[in-house]
């Protein structure tokens, strides 16, 4: 809005005196004479000599108008005024005298008098001769608005990641008007109608993208859109791949709080060895995982309660066993997003957060093979077209760290530092008959194995462990975007999970074998309904058929909340069970985005209607000559979700969300011996509220308060004489609350970074009568600072700082000797009332890229723990628990690697 320009206007009381137009004043003549203004002849002295009544034969005519300045002191009031003056005009047409007869204010009066004195008239004539005359004149001061300036929408379209401008992008308004971005990526619309405008971005390499802007009258709105630099001519060092559009401003995300990271930035983070998905460990709301665990603990939820999806298909883990590598090759990852809670109704079955991995579309220009090698593993990846409509991408990776160490180490290092073996593979075929429609076939495979053997002659200290973990996924993806803003996606999938643990601890077997077949279907449809509503509907089905065998103590493997210490041998009371369990749900859902107040407020209600079922083949422990009796239970869950996002300005966004989730029991917990075949679902409700300041599209600050409450968690039966088949009960409660803060600078001008801090408390209650205690994975403070910079000429560097509270531990307050087993046992204090020391670590990364004959070779050196700090990762006790020492984390660890892309 432009400021109002002061102006003045005048009117002459005499009908014959006409206002003349004047440019500067732009004043309209007052059509009405003020009260008491003189009629023609008024002011003529009737007592003039001569006896005969003089007649006005010609009225005076204003020849020179002088504009009075609007008094500065009156502008603030924002109102005009009128001053009525009496003017004595001489026979020469000059102003002989002037006086105020109706005042407005001293300042208005003075301004009016000064102006009027400079007026020049054509003299009046009486009886045909020029004569002096008095007239009344009303001088109007009017504070007028300037006429509306044209409303302008201008902006730029940039490549996300590099910040390079994108030329040739068609930006179209709903009115049909369109602009094409220039070489600088800029576009402009002038004279846009005020109010909400729907824009569509499209181009040869872009899927149609719609967004909305709200413009006030006369406003010039500057916007910036960042899209992925994919299929166009690649910049110097960017692979010419096909990437997905990401809009930063305005965000079109359905999640109120989410942290998303593009692969291009994530792979440069220090301490991740170039593994894109390890960036998740550094996101706000995520606790630091203990070394060698690979756990993803989000907002105080158990690691197994956070769901991981790859292209919409659930996978059991984000990382290989031990957390050395993620399960998806980094070259095939487009982006990863973490939603810590209160996510939309399209997802469910998890009490914790949501990790979504989007893989990169196969390249369409030519085949791009690449090889990678470092201390941990070697891999091969390829991406490219097979024909005009068919593209392919795939990868193979195998670890060699174990083999290298087996040849180099004498002794039994694995007793203390088991090194997992892993390999993974993926294949993706894409058939795209037209730009708006494609179908894909995917395959994912991951395998881990680790073997450990501890102890020699001592039969009680002897410990063996062989663990094999793996999963396979095969799925199709079909997507159609008709161009009207709607999108249809259908993903049917099959899978298999396996988890085998075979071992013994001092003669007590510890065995768990799980084979599960999974079947899933995910279908969704979204479309705009008018200008203010986006409607989504979908269907999410997942069935699991598991065969499980377990042998050993109910206390091994331990569960969250067990009162125990590290290295404590399990009880020697053992059992065995073999069972089958089927669980599943089929959830239709509705998701809506309603834009109100010109898009300033978005209301996103959603609902997920989810019938769950659980079936087991045995509801009681097996007994000789007794037929098994199965069990089936079902329940209907209605899970409302609601999110609000209010943007009172282009910089500030306020948001709030609520979501209710339910989670099926794990097949491992449905044993009649080790668990409870009749366990129901667990529930959680997430609440969050936050604010985001987005200063430029590249720099943003986000603060979020969160609270989650979970119920009906499976915990050990606390009774001394539990009922049969009730080793576990769904009576546990949980709560977590805190805040997270993220200061983020997206990749632009060669550098990016963030500062993430989470302050939180997570607690559990092991039954209605039990007190609240700290959750095993509670971390009060978690701070991560990342910084990465591209120096040019192929050189890059980055650093990472992590600070985190230690995990809670249960203190040992005494010990006693078990003479039957010849071993000491700890007497434990209150659960989780002590903590491991605080952790901090600094990592560095340096890289150099060379262009060699059309290929790109990048070498990197990733140095973890550059200060060689001896962080305490665990507390280990001596055999009689009289002495304890900390198990230290990794010392300084340089990892040298290289990637060669052809």
């Amino acid at each position, binding site marked *: 809005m432009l400021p109002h320009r002061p102006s003045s206007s005048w009117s002459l009381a005499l009908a014959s005196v006409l206002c003349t137009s004047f440019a500067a004043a732009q004043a309209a003549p007052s059509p009405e004479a003020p009260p008491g203004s003189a009629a023609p002849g008024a002011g003529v002295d009737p007592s003039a000599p001569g006896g005969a009544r003089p007649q006005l034969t010609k009225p005076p005519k204003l020849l020179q108008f002088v504009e009075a300045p609007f008094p500065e002191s009156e502008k603030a009031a924002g109102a005009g005024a009128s001053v009525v003056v009496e003017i004595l005009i001489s026979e020469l047409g000059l102003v002989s005298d002037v006086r105020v007869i109706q005042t407005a204010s001293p300042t208005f009066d003075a301004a009016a008098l000064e102006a009027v004195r400079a007026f020049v008239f054509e003299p009046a004539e009486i009886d045909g001769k020029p004569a002096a005359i008095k007239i009344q004149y009303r001088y109007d001061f009017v504070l007028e608005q300037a006429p509306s300036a044209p409303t302008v929408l201008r902006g730029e379209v940039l490549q996300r990641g590099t910040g390079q401008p994108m030329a040739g992008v068609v930006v179209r308004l709903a009115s049909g008007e369109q602009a094409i971005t220039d070489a600088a990526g800029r576009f402009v619309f002038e004279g846009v109608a005020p109010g909400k405008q729907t824009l569509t971005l499209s181009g040869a390499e872009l899927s149609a993208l719609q967004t909305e802007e709200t413009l006030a009258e006369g406003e010039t709105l500057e916007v910036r859109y960042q899209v992925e630099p994919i299929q166009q001519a690649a910049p110097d060092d960017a692979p010419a791949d096909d990437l997905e559009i990401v809009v930063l401003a305005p965000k079109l995300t359905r999640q109120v709080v989410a942290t998303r990271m593009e692969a291009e930035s994530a792979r440069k983070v220090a301490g991740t060895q170039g593994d894109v998905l390890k960036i998740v460990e550094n996101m706000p709301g995520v606790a630091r995982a203990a070394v060698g665990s690979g756990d993803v603990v989000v907002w105080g939820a158990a690691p197994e309660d956070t769901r991981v999806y790859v292209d919409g298909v659930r996978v059991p883990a984000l990382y290989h066993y031990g957390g050395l590598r993620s399960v998806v090759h980094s070259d095939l990852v487009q982006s990863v997003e973490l939603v810590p809670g209160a996510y939309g109704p399209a997802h469910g079955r998890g009490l914790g957060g949501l990790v979504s991995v989007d893989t990169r579309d196969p390249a369409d220009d030519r085949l791009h093979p690449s090889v990678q090698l470092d201390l941990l593993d070697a891999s091969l990846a390829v991406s490219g077209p097979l024909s005009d409509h068919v593209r392919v991408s795939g990868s193979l990776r195998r670890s060699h760290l174990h083999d290298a160490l087996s040849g180099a180490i004498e002794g039994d290092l694995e007793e203390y530092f088991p090194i997992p073996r892993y390999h993974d593979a993926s294949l993706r075929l894409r058939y795209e008959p037209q730009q708006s429609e494609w179908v894909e076939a995917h395959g994912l495979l991951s395998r881990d194995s680790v073997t450990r053997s501890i102890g020699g002659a001592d039969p009680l200290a002897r410990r063996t462990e062989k663990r094999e973990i793996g999963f396979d996924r095969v799925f199709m993806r079909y997507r159609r975007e008709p161009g009207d803003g709607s999108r249809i996606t259908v993903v049917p999938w099959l899978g298999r999970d396996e988890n085998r643990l075979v071992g013994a601890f001092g003669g007590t077997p510890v065995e768990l074998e799980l084979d599960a077949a999974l079947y899933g279907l995910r279908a969704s449809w979204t479309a705009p309904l008018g200008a203010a509503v986006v409607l989504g509907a979908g269907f999410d089905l997942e069935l699991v058929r598991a065969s499980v065998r377990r042998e050993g103590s109910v206390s091994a493997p331990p569960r969250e909340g067990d009162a125990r210490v590290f290295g404590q041998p399990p009880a020697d009371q053992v059992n065995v069970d073999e069972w089958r369990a089927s669980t599943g749900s089929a959830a239709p859902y509705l998701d809506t985005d309603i834009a109100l107040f010109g898009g300033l407020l978005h209301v996103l209600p959603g609902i997920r209607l989810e019938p769950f079922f659980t079936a087991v083949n045995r509801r009681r422990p097996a007994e000789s000559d007794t037929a098994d009796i199965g069990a089936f239970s079902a329940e209907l869950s209605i899970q409302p979700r609601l999110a609000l996002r209010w943007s009172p300005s282009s910089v500030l966004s306020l948001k709030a969300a609520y979501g209710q989730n339910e989670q099926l029991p794990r097949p491992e917990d449905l044993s009649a011996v080790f668990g409870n075949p009749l366990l129901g679902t667990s529930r959680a409700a997430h609440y969050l509220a936050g604010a985001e300041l987005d200063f430029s599209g590249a720099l943003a600050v986000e603060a979020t308060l969160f609270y989650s409450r979970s119920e009906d968690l499976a915990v050990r039966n606390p009774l001394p004489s539990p009922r049969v088949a009730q080793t576990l009960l769904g009576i546990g409660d949980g709560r977590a609350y805190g805040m997270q803060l993220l200061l983020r600078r997206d990749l632009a001008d060669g550098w990016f970074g963030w500062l993430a801090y989470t302050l939180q408390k997570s607690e559990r209650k092991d039954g209605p009568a039990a007190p609240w205690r700290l959750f095993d994975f509670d971390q009060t403070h978690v701070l991560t600072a990342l910084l990465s910079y591209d120096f040019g000429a192929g050189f890059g560097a980055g650093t990472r700082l992590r600070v985190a509270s230690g995990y809670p531990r249960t203190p040992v307050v005494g010990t006693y000797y078990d003479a039957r087993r010849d071993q000491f046992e700890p007497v434990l204090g209150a659960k989780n009332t002590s903590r491991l020391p605080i952790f901090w670590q600094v990592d560095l990364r340096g890289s150099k890229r060379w262009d060699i004959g059309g290929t790109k070779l990048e070498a990197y050196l990733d140095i973890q723990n550059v200060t060689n700090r001896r962080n305490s990762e665990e507390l280990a006790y001596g055999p009689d628990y009289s002495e304890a*020492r900390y198990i230290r984390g990794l*010392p300084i660890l340089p990892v040298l690697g290289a990637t060669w892309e052809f």
Partner: protein
Amino acid sequence: MNHRRSRPLAVVGSLVASLAAACVPELETDLSRIDQPTLLAIVAEPPEVEEGDTVALSALVAGLGEGSADPITYSFCRARKPLSELGPVDPACLVSTSADVIDVLGTGPAVTGLIEREACSAFGPRRPVSAPGQPAGRAVDADPTGGFYQPVLAELPGRGRVLGGVRLNCGLPGANRDQVVLYNERHRPNVNPRLERVEAQLDGAWIELGAATGATNPVGPGTEVLLRAGWIDCAQDTACTGAETYVRFDPELGRLTDETESLFVTWYATAGELESHRVAPTDPGLSSVENRWIAPDEAGPVELWAVLRDGRGGVGFAAHRLQVR
């Protein structure tokens, strides 16, 4: 060429060796050293009983010094441990004096106790009696040998309670009639193992050590002595003081299986340094174990104990005295 190839591996090796050194704490607890009165074992005779049987309890206490004998208080623990307790006994039994929790049997070098009629419900495979209309209670899980134990507590004054156990013969509640008949036919109650000989290799020759109260065995200061403890070989399906064979009901296979006890020896000494605290035969067929002991540099008597356990609650021991000079 080979030299150049091996170099990166050497670098990796040194790196990871440093990792291992960095990760593994060194705890120097020596469980074999006896420097104060210590209760090493609780001996039940017989070591396997049925409900309503009487059992004699005694204890091996080391480090008392010659001629002294602190009284030992023996109790049965009556509380069944909840499944949320990961240890071997309800923690209340370690501290409580309530009669609901502890059944005090008496004080002295040895006592006798009566196994309660419901012991197999509280600590065995028989399901606890439930209220009418209520589902049955959960049976206690057996140990890897198929055994169940009545918890026993023995307490030296001011030294805290030590946990032991008396093996319960509760039959096979989960098995069918044929299996029960076969089990009863073949089952032999456990017998406490006995150390037949404890020998030391001195000057290249094996010498049987004398009893603690008997002849002393001279050893030079700092001398490394190879020790050997042995027990008798047992024939199949016979009760004896060596590694017995026994039948166990395999709940997964649903049939009886033949097993052999896994014996091991725990060593203690008042001075010197034992190479291993606990030793099991390297081959299940062997009936002896070896250990190394380095005599102290100071002259004087050294008491040595070897405790033999059979994995089914049976225990035997031997005490010897060596003279460092």
